[in-house]
């Protein structure tokens, strides 16, 4: 039998044989971790003579005849046999049964042996997660799963942008997250302690996702957390690590003397005077990036206790993770998560089983302005390098020339005061009732309660006289002005805002599983039928007050504010939506050879229009395990399965703000009569009664193969997704005014791609094992229809002042492609301008824009596709080596073909410039890419164009880890020390901090407005098992 090849035995020592009957004693342990196995069966083969191992895995069996076979077995392990010819002590190591344990995947409302699954699933186990030590569990999916695109976010604790099998929709592509059967959102993963996770399954095709119906269309991430085992001794696991984070790249900006020289040239070019006559005394000035970026700490400590008796098993854990920000340091930017979780599985009787999961998490965080023109990094990149960070009196340096928007980033950091405190309880109560051996009824109540408190303090600030951000005198006292005419005084105020938001959602599910087989156990059926009810709600209340004593964060609270009643304002909002669904599935196999699965879900959702509340989603799949055929007789191939599926799933992508369900009145409008403010109203929202779900029809074909005694494995899938009725909130005609247009079903897209994973795994000897895998993913999406009023596109991300929209979701294009002018070198001479299409305002040294439509005029009609923020393909490569007590892991990730739009350049008269300016055009033949410098950009060289597009392809060494397990420590079953470097190095041509650019929203991908860089982390840690 092939599986026995994995079986392993270590016989430690022998004693001499006695006469006819022997007495055998010893211990049974797990080979993987040396843990004793209680409750294992030891039996003399083909007899009734048997015993069970005790809590320490110890056993003694008497009366074993000479020459008899002794059998050691335990669920989930490969059975081991030994022929006895003397009395002895045996130390038995049982090998985990890969076929029985690893290959069970949790699918919706049940689990299935992987060998019987005819859909497409990508599995990440706890080892991959433990190796990576991610802050958020999604990180582990990046290089270890196929078919999923994860763009990391460098900001402490912030969510990455995730899409499974492409960005098929304009409104969002967030997958559904199911934690231990409880439906959650992707944002909820921030409270999940990664070290509690047992496995993550990414369900990709309709055969697996259709059971989740209207929520399953963007794929499903199924998280299973760790739990205790029955009859298991108390096990304690402690893991602790500490690390330092650093930013490894800087953006090349001009130093002070370069800046001064460029400003002189720009001034002269626009008819002005030399601004800085003497460049020699200026020097290098201030590098603002050095001022705001620092090294910061990261630490993680987790402890868990698990165990079980005959009837009850349990798992409890506690964890703390603290990540400080590399921008601004731990005063202003951090993410601290404390988590506690407990799971209890109890057999109440033979029939009833109770499962209780409870997870509590607390997050405390502070954050900075990020990824916008006013962010700390944007200020650091654009602020005047001639200003000193501090004046001689210790106050912050001030620019005399920059009087709006851009400020000294240190002043900004100093004036940033906020805090967030999130408490979250999530879990489930599940009662299973075994009606018959093969009929089980499950009643599950899953809940998620989140309480988010935030406070934001806006102190009185001074950015210089006349700066439009200044609200205070230089001594930070309020600016008091007296009306010359009336003598009335007005004063500036500091201000505090406190906000409390509660989210509560529950899902109640009732379903029955009935498994049976017919005709000599050849025809196997697994069925499930059930219903689900869920309710999601949220409510917020916000209070604002002004005049905080001493302009101090210490007193920044509504309760301490001294402003009058009129200045205390408040607001609130709430939402509510409900779902009701029925679902069912039939899995059938004939002798484990021919697999059929049929499933469906009938879903109702209150978020849809009155006319379209219910939808039916369905899928069917077929599989053929060729290697189980009698005629299949290969020495090389151990397992081969060919599978295909087709089905329809839905998506209720309504974005973060659920769509308007009603036409409601907005009472915010105000006007002034007689000098007094009076309240008015107008229509605030309009619903779309026809709003319906997106329907994704997906075809999947693939195979799984294992070869060379399971050393090599491969899974490959090809898929096609046709999405119709794409939901998005259209950009309506501006003549509709300000009202928010409701979402509509007005588009379609087609996606295809390939997911391939390839693994190699070999134990060369007791001391040396090696495993590696490569995950390869391609996605091609074309938007096939957009009917946005008169337009065939929706507008996406924008940047800068004036605000310029750069990405579009447009018919006939890839999703969220970059839209702008195409540059065609630099005009070297007036003659070149004259012979080119009419380009208003162009002078020699300005950018020549391509006349795309050939009408002889350069205007908006010439804008075109200038880049694609999404990669052509991604791959992850991971490897691990174990040699004696040393283990080594490497994880890498590459994204090829994605473009980045550089959107952090402010391009104002006195703001700093970037190093490329040094290669500017200064006369014919000097440059054909970088335009002249001038204060009066008559040619609008800074318009959105491919000048700002860069190739964002990269190859990243994400993780290196070296561990050493100290053997034979008394009282400790395992003690391992390790050192780790994360985000070791990035190979890329991109000139910014990091080519992975995400603000959490897929439509924002690749737009770099000064994104928080992803830090390199050096850390050390230890792992102890008792």
């Amino acid at each position: 039998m092939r599986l026995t090849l994995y079986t392993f035995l270590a016989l430690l020592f022998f004693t001499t044989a006695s006469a006819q009957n022997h007495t055998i004693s010893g211990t049974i342990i797990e080979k993987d971790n040396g843990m004793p196995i209680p409750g294992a069966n030891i039996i003399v083969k083909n007899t009734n003579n048997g015993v069970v191992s005790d809590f320490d895995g110890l056993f003694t069996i008497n009366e074993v005849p000479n020459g008899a076979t002794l059998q050691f077995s335990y669920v989930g392990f490969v059975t081991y046999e030994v022929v006895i010819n003397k009395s002895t002590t045996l130390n038995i190591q049982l090998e985990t049964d890969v076929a029985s344990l690893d290959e069970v995947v949790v699918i919706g409302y049940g689990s299935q042996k992987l060998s019987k699954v005819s859909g497409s699933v990508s599995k990440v186990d706890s080892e991959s997660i433990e190796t990576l030590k991610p802050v958020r569990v999604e990180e582990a999916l990046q290089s270890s799963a196929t078919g999923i695109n994860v763009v990391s976010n460098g900001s402490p604790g912030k969510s990455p942008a995730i899409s499974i099998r492409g960005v098929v929709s304009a409104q969002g592509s967030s997958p559904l997250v199911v934690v231990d059967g409880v439906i959650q959102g992707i944002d909820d993963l921030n409270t999940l302690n990664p070290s509690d996770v047992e496995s993550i399954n990414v369900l990709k095709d309709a055969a697996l996702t259709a059971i989740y119906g209207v929520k399953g269309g963007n794929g499903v991430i199924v998280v299973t957390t760790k739990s205790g085992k029955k009859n298991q001794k108390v096990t304690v696991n402690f893991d602790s690590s500490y690390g330092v984070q650093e930013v490894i790249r800087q953006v090349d900006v001009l130093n002070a003397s370069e800046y001064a020289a460029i400003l002189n040239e720009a001034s002269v070019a626009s008819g002005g005077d030399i601004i800085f006559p003497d460049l020699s005394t200026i020097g290098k000035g201030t590098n603002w990036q050095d001022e705001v970026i620092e090294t910061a700490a990261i630490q993680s400590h987790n402890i868990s206790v698990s165990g079980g008796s005959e009837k009850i098993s349990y798992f409890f854990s506690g964890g703390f993770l603290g990540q400080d920000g590399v921008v601004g340091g731990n005063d202003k930017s951090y993410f601290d998560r404390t988590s506690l979780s407990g799971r209890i599985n109890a057999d109440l009787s033979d029939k009833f089983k109770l499962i209780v999961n409870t997870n509590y998490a607390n997050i405390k965080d502070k954050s900075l302005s990020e990824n916008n023109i006013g962010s700390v990094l944007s200020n650091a990149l654009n602020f005047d390098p001639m200003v000193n960070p501090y004046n001689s009196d210790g106050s912050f340096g001030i620019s005399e020339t920059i009087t709006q928007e851009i400020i000294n980033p240190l002043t900004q950091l100093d004036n940033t005061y906020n805090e967030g405190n999130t408490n979250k309880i999530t879990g489930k109560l599940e009662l299973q009732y075994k009606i018959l051996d093969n009929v089980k009824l499950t009643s599950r109540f899953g809940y998620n309660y989140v309480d988010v408190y935030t406070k934001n303090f806006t102190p009185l600030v001074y950015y210089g006289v006349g700066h439009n951000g200044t609200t205070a005198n230089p001594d930070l006292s309020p600016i008091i002005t007296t009306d010359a005419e009336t003598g009335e005084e007005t004063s500036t105020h500091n201000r505090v805002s406190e906000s409390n938001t509660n989210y509560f959602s529950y899902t109640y599910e009732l379903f029955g599983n009935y498994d049976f087989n017919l005709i000599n156990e050849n025809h196997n059926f697994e069925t499930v039928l059930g219903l689900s009810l869920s309710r999601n709600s949220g409510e917020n209340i916000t209070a604002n007050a002004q005049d905080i004593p001493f302009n101090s964060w210490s007193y920044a609270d509504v309760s301490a504010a001294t402003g009058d009643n009129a200045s205390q304002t408040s607001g609130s909002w709430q939402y509510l939506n409900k779902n009701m669904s029925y679902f069912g599935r039939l899995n059938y196999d004939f002798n484990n050879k021919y697999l059929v699965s049929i499933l469906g879900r009938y879903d109702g959702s209150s978020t849809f229009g009155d006319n379209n509340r219910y939808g039916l989603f369905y899928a069917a799949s077929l599989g053929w395990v060729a290697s189980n055929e009698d005629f299949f007789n290969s020495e090389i191939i151990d397992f081969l399965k060919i599978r295909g599926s087709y089905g329809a799933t839905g998506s209720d992508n309504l974005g973060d703000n659920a769509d308007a369900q009603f036409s409601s009145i907005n009472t915010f409008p105000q006007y002034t009569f007689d000098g007094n403010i009076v309240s008015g109203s107008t229509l605030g929202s309009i619903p779309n009664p026809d709003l319906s779900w997106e329907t994704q029809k997906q075809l999947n074909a693939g195979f799984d193969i294992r070869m060379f005694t399971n050393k090599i494995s491969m899974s490959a899938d090809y898929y096609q997704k046709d999405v119709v009725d794409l939901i998005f909130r259209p950009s309506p005609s501006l003549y509709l005014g300000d009202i928010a247009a409701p979402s509509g079903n007005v588009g379609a897209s087609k996606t295809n791609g390939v997911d391939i994973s390839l693994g190699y795994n070999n134990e060369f000897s007791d001391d040396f094992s090696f495993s590696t895998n490569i995950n390869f993913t391609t996605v091609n999406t074309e938007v096939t229809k957009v009917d946005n009023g008169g337009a065939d596109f929706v507008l996406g991300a924008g940047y800068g002042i004036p605000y310029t929209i750069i990405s579009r979701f447009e018919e006939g294009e890839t999703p969220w492609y970059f839209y702008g002018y195409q540059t065609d070198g630099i005009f070297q001479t007036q003659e070149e301008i004259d012979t080119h299409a009419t380009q208003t305002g162009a002078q020699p040294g300005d950018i020549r824009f391509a006349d795309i439509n050939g009408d002889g005029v350069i205007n908006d009609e010439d804008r075109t596709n200038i880049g694609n923020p999404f990669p052509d393909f991604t791959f992850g490569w991971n490897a691990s080596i174990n040699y004696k007590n040393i283990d080594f892991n490497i994880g890498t990730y590459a994204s090829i073909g994605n473009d980045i739009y550089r959107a952090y350049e402010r391009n104002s008269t006195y703001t700093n410039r970037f190093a490329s300016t040094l290669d500017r055009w200064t006369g014919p033949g000097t440059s054909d890419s970088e335009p002249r410098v001038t204060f009066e950009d008559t040619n609008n060289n800074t318009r959105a164009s491919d000048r700002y597009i860069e190739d964002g392809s990269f190859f990243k060494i994400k993780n290196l880890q070296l561990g050493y397990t100290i053997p034979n420590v008394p009282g400790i079953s395992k003690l391992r020390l390790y050192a780790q470097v994360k985000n070791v190095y990035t190979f890329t041509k991109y000139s910014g901090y990091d080519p992975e650019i995400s603000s959490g929203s897929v439509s924002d991908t690749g737009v770099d407005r000064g994104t928080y860089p992803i830090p390199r982390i050096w850390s050390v840690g230890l792992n102890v098992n008792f």
Partner: protein
Amino acid sequence: MKILKNSVLPFMLIFLALGCSDYLDVEPTDTHEIEDSVYFQQEADYQAAVIGTYDPLQWMYLNTLIGDIASDNSLCGGESATDVIGLQQIDDMTHNPNNDNLTNLWKWCYEGVNRANYLEENKTKLDFDGKEALYGEVYFLRAYYYFELVKFFGDVPVFVDRRLDASDSGNIPRSPKADVYTQIETDLRDAIAVLPTTQSQSGRVTKYAAQALLGKAYLYQEKFPEAATTLNNVIGAFTLVDDFESQFLKSGENGIESVFEVQYTNTSEWYDWDYVPQGTEGNFGIIHNGPRADIAGYARGWAFNVPTQDLYDAYDSEDTRREATILTYSGDASSLAGYEQTGYFNHKYIPRAGESGAQTELNYLNNYRAIRYADVLLMAAEANARGNISDGLAQQYLNEVRRRAFGDLDHDITSSGNTLVQAIWNERKLELAMEGHRFFDLVRTGEAASTINGFTTNKHEVFPIPQLERDISGITQNEGY
């Protein structure tokens, strides 16, 4: 099997029960929303919706700024050549369809139109005393917004029956300019028929305001007899203030010369950047006009919209309007940080010390004197002169304005015919400078090309339709853009 039956039965029952129940129903009251079906059931709802229709008037600061920046009266100014690039381009006559400022202006005017139309849509739901007069205000406001649109963009989409919804997006073509004016005239005539001549609250529209605006709309179409007749209703209903400058002070707000005034106050608690200009109740235009220097009695501003030397020189030294219109910075002009600085500032709408609110820049209380009686007199004069109705009346109205400016009778104009028309136009420049009228006066009188540097005939008479609107709605562009 009994146990199976016992457990499956309730299971089935739950299925059935839920199948018939209204589990999915969510009521507007669950989230405390006022659904529009329960609105307009009391007079107060109508009153509130009318206030909502006035609200966009406060966002029209750009309309005023552009009226002078685009003309020969002022330069854009600002911190640097890139400061509010959209306005810089308009000043230089290099503006293109991608202009944030014009896009906002377009959208805000249409928000006003839609709010008025929402009242039209609900007009028949309830009857109450004073409803007709209240709708007179609504029709005036709709005409006001359409008049801004037609002034700026020429042909624009026109719709009046209801607030548009998503199904209308991209489905409404531009109406010819003449049709836009027809709608404006209709609305104003309807308003005049029902509006009272005085209102209990200052800031509300009166019959006179509607007549003045209708007269203006006629004048813009060169319908001189209609203009003269209509404006004649307003003549005598107001008085010029003695001291020209006084009407631009806080104490001069809603004074005897004020025909229609957009109201602002500095007392809003929604005063910060997040709410500009739509949420605050302050006049966001004012800060733009302030000097980037400390001048006693005034507050610092952003040094936009700076009057030109030519404008200063256009005034007779005895003209009291010169100092009232233009604030001269007596300090060293070269020390003024900023772009295109002339040393002059818009004195009519300038940040005065202490008149903003808690956010010192954004909340100026200065009302915008949208229609002054002096404007009415000069329009009436022009209608009479150009319509060959009565040069005598034209002179009378013109000289009423000049006598106030000079404080004597020595500067009366006695010319007639074309010379008189030129004198009236010149008087409009001097009297109404820096109030946002100049560019549109130059365009409608055909003087723009000879007066404004860079002005291209058959192009710059109107501004480009915002590119965003064209992209979305597929409507046509104005000629030359």
